[in-house]
């Protein structure tokens, strides 16, 4: 019986360690994306972009808005613009891989669209910011993409 108790105690301790590992890794906070939207548009309107609908998200990325708890999407406001900001809050981390695939596909389609004549656009696409952190995934194209990403991260990043 002593051995059983010891084994059970070891199982509890190990569980505590696993939980601690999972809960105290550096993870972003669950914040409403409206906060990010406000921060991004606080100083000036986003250049050559407009807020876009679920339908547009589907057309551009093949993603269903209803699959995600929240998303924020500014699409190009004219055919010659490649500026774009998409941030998705995922329901669970398993969605990230497929979202990443959707981002790569969008990027390669856009590169193909502007290849050969839109040198500025191609340059911006080459420096696109895509990635993920915890439950968030982002796709940003534009001269200020790096700053937009910094702004967004400053809202959701919480150091544990």
């Amino acid at each position: 019986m002593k051995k059983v108790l010891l084994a059970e105690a070891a199982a509890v301790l190990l569980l505590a360690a696993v939980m601690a590992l999972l809960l105290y890794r550096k993870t972003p906070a669950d914040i409403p994306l409206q906060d990010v939207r406000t921060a991004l548009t606080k100083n000036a309107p986003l250049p050559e972009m407009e807020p876009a609908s679920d339908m547009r998200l589907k057309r551009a990325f093949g993603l269903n808005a209803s699959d995600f708890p929240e998303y924020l999407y500014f699409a190009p406001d004219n055919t010659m613009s490649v500026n774009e900001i998409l941030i998705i809050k995922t329901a669970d981390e398993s969605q990230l891989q497929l979202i990443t695939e959707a981002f790569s596909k969008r990027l390669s389609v856009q590169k193909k669209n502007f290849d050969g004549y839109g040198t500025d656009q191609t340059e911006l696409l080459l420096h696109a910011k895509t990635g993920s952190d915890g439950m968030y995934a982002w796709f940003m194209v534009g001269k200020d993409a790096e700053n937009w990403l910094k702004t967004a991260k400053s809202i959701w990043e919480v150091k544990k």
Partner: protein
Amino acid sequence: MIFSSVTFLFLFLPFTLLLYYIVPKKLKNAVLLVTSLVFYAWGEPVYVVLMLYSILLNYSMGLLMDRFPRAKKEILGFTVAINLLMLGFFKYYGFLMENINAVFHLNLPIRSLALPIGISFYTFQALSYDIDLYRGKFPVQKNIVKFAAYITMFPQLIAGPIVRYEDVEKQMDQRKLSMPRFGRGAVRFIIGLAKKVLLANLTGAIFDQVHLAGADISTLSAWTGALAYTFQIYFDFSGYSDMAIGLGDMLGFRFMENFNYPYAAESVTDFWRRWHISLGTWFREYVYIPLGGNRVKVLKHIRNILIVWMLTGLWHGASWNFVIWGLYYGLLLLLEKYVFLKWKIPTAVRRVFTLLFVIIGWVIFSSDTLPLILTTISAMFGFAKKGFADGTARYLLRSSWPILLFAAFFSLPILKKPLEKMKQGRAGVLYMCAGYILLLLLLSVSIAFLVTENYNPFLYFRF
């Protein structure tokens, strides 16, 4: 990783099958384990740790039960408690805290936790091992690789069927691989893929259009949306189960059937014998029968049914609509047992009413909030904000009726016999050739859809 993705179909599956078939017999479980871990980690690297813990816990507690038979009841209690604690914490913690905050007007901080994918499925599988080992149904599994391969087996890891250890115990040691079996598995996999990509995704797109409108819908839209979701969830989940069973066959395993044309059911009881059979079996074996089943007095039986169905609802997710959905079925089953089954109702009428109740059930299941459930059901029965039919409804119906009709056709057992003949190889040569050409066509069209569609999550992943 999901089955209906280009990465799985063209990279993971061919590589896994090749490796699995070329390694010697004694290494097959190890290959299955390693590839399953890669499959799981692809989308959810961090939570592999939790799954490994679950494996270690259930394996070692099994060994302890075997070594100390006099303490096995206590060991089982401990193991079940830890398993449920893990499941409860990751799945229900946020829901519990939200409700505590709402009821007691508190503002306790809620840490948002990502749901480890497949946790409901693999925890139930592990529990089936622990409980049946305690009951002495099979000897303890001393080989950790075999045990881990059982828990992690990639074909059914993420969305079932929930394979009980009892059903695969012998197959973990000995399973037959043969070309006819591989072929059968491949056919089943292609059928599942086509169900998911061609029927579930297309009916899902119809449902999404209605869902986007929220409460602002007409009666016709509400019915179109409800029907579309009814077909989407069936083809999505049964498609996944077909793919899982097919993959199992390819790897030499025989998994239990999870669906049997549920929309042809003659009663709600019959529906649940045909829908998500592995979950129903699990709850019957490990909750309903231990509570006394139906061999008790009426009041206790009512209690047992309501407990089982509330748990079934909760198993699907930490949200009130799932609890309501579970209790809705509990009440329907009680009404059926104590009232309706005593009436003589023609079979056709029973089928229609069963389907109606099931469709209403899916409205509850698919609506995030109580007001949305009520407005959608009211809209379906004539109390719609936009009247009987608005422009959106007419457009939806005009553009989607062929898909809905196809979905209805394939959800009923009309092609069951010809397909069975084909599976058993009893059909004529011409018939078989036509069948295989159709399968190749289905595979090609499904892949074409997959390449153009980026995101194809299975509905049951979130459970």
